[in-house]
Each structure stands twice: as C-alpha cells, then as structure tokens.
C-alpha cells in the first residue's frame, strides 16, 4: 500500500514537472509582455503532435525532443512578429482574445492534419524498462521525465539569472520603457521571450506525449491547469510555478488512486482553497 503511494507520489512529481514547464513559460511571457497567452495549451498540443510526426519520420524520439520544441518556438516567433506585435498598444483584453483565436486555429488545424483521434507515441527503446528496488517497481521513462524537466528548469533558471538575455527579461518585467530607453531593441526581446515561453510548452508537450499520447482537444484542459498553477504559485514567480506545478501534479496523481473521477476536480478545489486563504497565491506579490 505504501508502495502505491510512493508510486503515485513519483508520478505526481513527473506530472508536476510538466505542469511547471508549461506554467513557467506562461509566467515569463506574462512578466515581460504583460498579457496571458491563451494559446499556450494549443502550443503544448502542437508540441505533442510534432513529436509524433518527427518520431514517425526519423524513428528517433531524441531527435523529436530537439526538433518539435524548436519548431513550436519558431512558429510562436512568427506569430508574434506577424500578429501579436500589432496589438501591443491595445488593452490586455484584446491580446487575450487574439491568442484565443490563435488557439482555436491551432487546435482545429491539428485535427485537420492529424485527425480527430489521438495518436500514440512510443516510449523510446532506451527507457522502456522498469526500475526494480526490492518490492518497488517504477518505469524508467517517468524517472527520466522528472530528471530531464529538472534539467530544463535549471537551465532556464541559469538563463534568466546568469545571462545578459535573462537580465534584460527581468529588467523588462520591471519596466519595459526603461529597458527600451537604455538602447535595447525591446521588440526583439519580446519575440524571443514569447518564443522561449511557448517553446517550453512545446517541450512539455513532447515529454507528455509518451505518457498520454497526443490528444486533439487537450489544449483547454492544459491551459486550465496552467492557470491553476500560476494562481496557486503567483504569476511572475519562477519558484511559484515550480511549487504550484508540483503541488497540482501530486494532488492530481494521489487523487487518481483515491477517487479517479474526481482527480481533475480536486486540483480546482485546491486552487479555490488557496485563493480563499491567500488571494495572491502562495508566492505572489500584491
């Protein structure tokens, strides 16, 4: 019985790391560009489908893990350049609505390209086995998932805290005007940051694909979960996205063995509870 809980706890951590990657991308974009990307779930979906196609063509998951997120980021960069750039002067409501339109287009285009039934993606052969420790058995892929997502998270943290680009993103989140006046091409920074944030959703989509496959209508669900994570953790906080993501992942995973139908419901319940106690999230600034 205890093994089952440990199993679900580890599952929850893996799921939580995926949620963290999604939410931290959302948070970075919000921090600098000051609007919430409602197409985030759709880009996640696209990452999973591109992984499917890349695996189908090259037969190599590792290549897909590299190509799919880059392709998603490239698309995001183009969308930012062509469309979102034109609406920065409008109130945030309109930016949200444009990204909602983008989400609908991506979702429907995915169904058009890959069909209305989900696609399965095989676990790469190198990670197909299970880890056996006495009575405890755990799949390698899920362990890899936790480790790889943690590595990406660490890399992102170093990028944001230790590089010139990261310093500009952080400074821009405080005041875009000042950064712009100091001679930085703020629009270039915007498109790069948007591509980075969305690319993280793409990575999450690829990592998620071998677990649940690529499902055409998963976008809104992922978006909803990402919002729960940032509401719990506080928008614009790296640590908040990590703690919020892990919390949501573990709650969902634990509940799925206690009350399977209610697992999704419980994460929203957890969110409501956090807002009641701390309206600004666990790590949010007022």
């Amino acid at each position, binding site marked *: 019985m205890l093994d089952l809980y440990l199993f679900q706890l580890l599952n929850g951590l893996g799921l939580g790391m995926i949620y963290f990657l999604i939410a931290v991308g959302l948070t970075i974009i919000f921090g600098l560009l000051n*609007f919430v990307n409602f197409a985030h779930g759709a880009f996640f979906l696209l990452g999973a489908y591109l992984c499917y196609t890349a695996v189908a063509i090259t037969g190599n998951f590792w290549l897909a893990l590299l190509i799919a997120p880059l392709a998603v980021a490239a698309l995001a960069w183009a969308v930012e350049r062509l469309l979102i750039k034109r609406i920065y002067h409008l109130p945030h409501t309109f930016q*949200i609505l*444009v990204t909602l339109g983008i989400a*609908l287009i991506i979702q429907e285009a995915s169904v*058009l390209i890959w069909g209305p039934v989900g696609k399965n993606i095989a676990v790469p052969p190198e990670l197909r086995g299970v880890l056996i420790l006495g009575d405890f058995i755990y799949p390698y892929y899920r362990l890899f998932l936790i480790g790889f997502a943690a590595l990406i998270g660490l890399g992102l943290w170093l990028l944001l805290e230790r590089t010139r680009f990261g310093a500009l993103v952080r400074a821009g989140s405080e005041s875009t005007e000042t950064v712009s006046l100091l001679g930085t091409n703020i629009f270039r920074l915007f498109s790069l940051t948007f591509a980075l944030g969305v690319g993280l959703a793409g990575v999450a989509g690829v990592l998620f694909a071998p677990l649940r496959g690529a499902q055409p209508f998963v976008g809104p669900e992922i978006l909803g979960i990402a*919002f729960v994570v940032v509401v719990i953790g506080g928008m614009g906080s790296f640590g908040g996205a990590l703690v919020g993501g892990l919390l949501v992942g573990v709650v969902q995973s634990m509940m799925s063995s206690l009350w399977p139908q209610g697992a999704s419901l419980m994460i929203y319940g957890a969110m409501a509870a956090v807002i009641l106690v701390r309206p600004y999230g666990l790590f949010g600034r007022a």
Partner: protein
Amino acid sequence: MSNKTALPMGLGRTPALLLLVLASLVALPLILPSATLATEILIFALAALACNLLLGYTGLLSFGQGIFFGVGAYGAALLMIHLKWGMLGALFGAAVFGAFLALLVGALAIRRTGIYFVMLTLAFSQMAYFLAYTLSGWTGGDNGLLDVPRPNIEIAGHVLVDLADPRHFYVFVAVLFLLIFAGALRVIRSPFGSTLLAIRENETRAAAIGYDTRHFKILVFMLSGAITGIAGALYAMLLHFAPLSNIDLMMSENILIMTIVGGTGSLFGSLLGAGAIVVLGDVLSELWPRWLMLLGAILILVVVFMRGGLWGGLAALGKRLLASRTADDKAPAKTKETL
C-alpha cells in the same frame, strides 16, 4: 462617455432601440428557414447580452459564462423532470441557479482583478465541467441529460400557450428576449449602470470616489449569471436535451466570441453577433466540421480591424449615410466634400 454611446438615427434613445429589436424579432423567422434556428439565435443572443453586461459595460472578461449556461440547463431540466415544475417556474429556477453560481464564482474570482480574474473564471469553468462530468447521476455525464420536457404555459390545468409547436416557442422566447433586453437597457441607463461604466473606465477612480466596486461587480455578475441561466434553460427545452457541452469551456468561448463579433458595449450588437455566429455555424458545421478554425480567424480579424464589431461597423456606416443626407438637405453644395 456620452460621445461613446451617442448613436446615429436616434438609436441611442430607448424607444427607437426597442423598436429596432422588435422589428428584428419579427423579421428573424421570416428570413430564416426554420423557427428553431431563429429561437437558437435568440437564446444565444440572451447569453451574449449577459456577457456584454460584464465585458462591455463593466470591463470584466469572463470565461465562465458556460458555467451559468450549463447550470441553467441542468437546473431547469432537473426541476421539470423530478419536481414537475412548469415552464415559468423552471425558468425562474434557472435564473436563481445562475445567479447563485455567479455569486459563488464571483465571490472568489472578484477577489482578484485584471488578468487573475480572467484566469480564475477559466479555471472555474473547467471545474464546473469536471463537476458536471463527475455528478453523472444528476447530469447524465458524457451522455447528457435526456428527455428534457418543454412544458406548456398553463393556468389551473388550462393550456394557455402550447409550446410544442416550434413557432409558438419562438414567439415565447422572443417575448422573453424583448422583456430581458428592455430590462438590461434600463439597468445600464440607471445610476447603477453609470457606476459600472465608471468601473470599466477606471476602477481605482471609482473606488476612490467611494463606490464599493467589488459589491457592484458581484451584483452585475449575478445579473449576468441569471440571464445566462435562463438562456441555458431555454436551450435545453429547445433541444429536449442538456448535453455536457453546455457547460464546457467552448460554450464560454462561443458566447464571448458572439459578444465581441456583435460589438462590445452594445446590447443590440449581441443579437447581431449571436445571429451571425449561429447562422454561420448552422451553414458551415455540415459542410466543414473544422469551421471553428474560421471562428478563430474571425475573432482575430474583428479584434485587429473592427473592434466595434458588427454594430460598430453598422453604426459607422449609418453615421456616414446620415451625415451625407443631412448635408444634402441643408447644404447640397457640401455633399461632394463630405463624400
């Protein structure tokens, strides 16, 4: 503010606007191939109108309208099926359910403003969906709630209006629509409505003047929830069915898109938006199952190029026509310049 609401041809005035609505209600079933389609338009126009009270008049972007729509549908259906409530009782019940859910969601979501409010409404919308999915004993879960009745209006056992006929049902919904439209118009032209506009324009200032803005926002949220609940109940009666899709996020998004395409901040625009999207969906969904893609594109185009929506476009057109006509009457020589 008065400039923003000033419309050509005296349409800013209440009687003229209500006449326009009345004319549209008469014209709709004549233009459209079926009374059912016309009824569907009015139902979604009600939902869009309720959404407009939030977005257009208070500046609240809500992704939770599907919650109230779905709760109205389930609530009315359950009251009719299990408690044998009549038409008006069921609609009243749906309004109460909608308002109550709006109070619950509002009490939590309105604690936060701006972007958090938007995200919370979306999260609660997902929560309501999973709740409806989990409570399959009540809602039928994935299969939806079947055999929803459409009771006649009766007094002491005598059938006053037989609503089984789709045309009769249309007239009934049209009368309800007119009443609710007039009521909503009264609300937005009242001091309460002016306060909502003040909140939309600058919430900090409205609060500084001394208005308890949260109180106002929760009230308008409840009003919107009640109207959306009625719309949901009518939709369940129209289809004789309350599907799970009534309460999912796509419903919230649809209602929002109708509101924006019609014109935010114009109640009549909501009728235009609902009409355009429902007819488009009716025509296209058969031909092209992925027509939502087009809906996404339309949403983007409206936001980028035509933020007033259809109503804004028509109003601008009307203004130009009117300007050229009055120029004709008064100083014909000037016409060429204005054109």
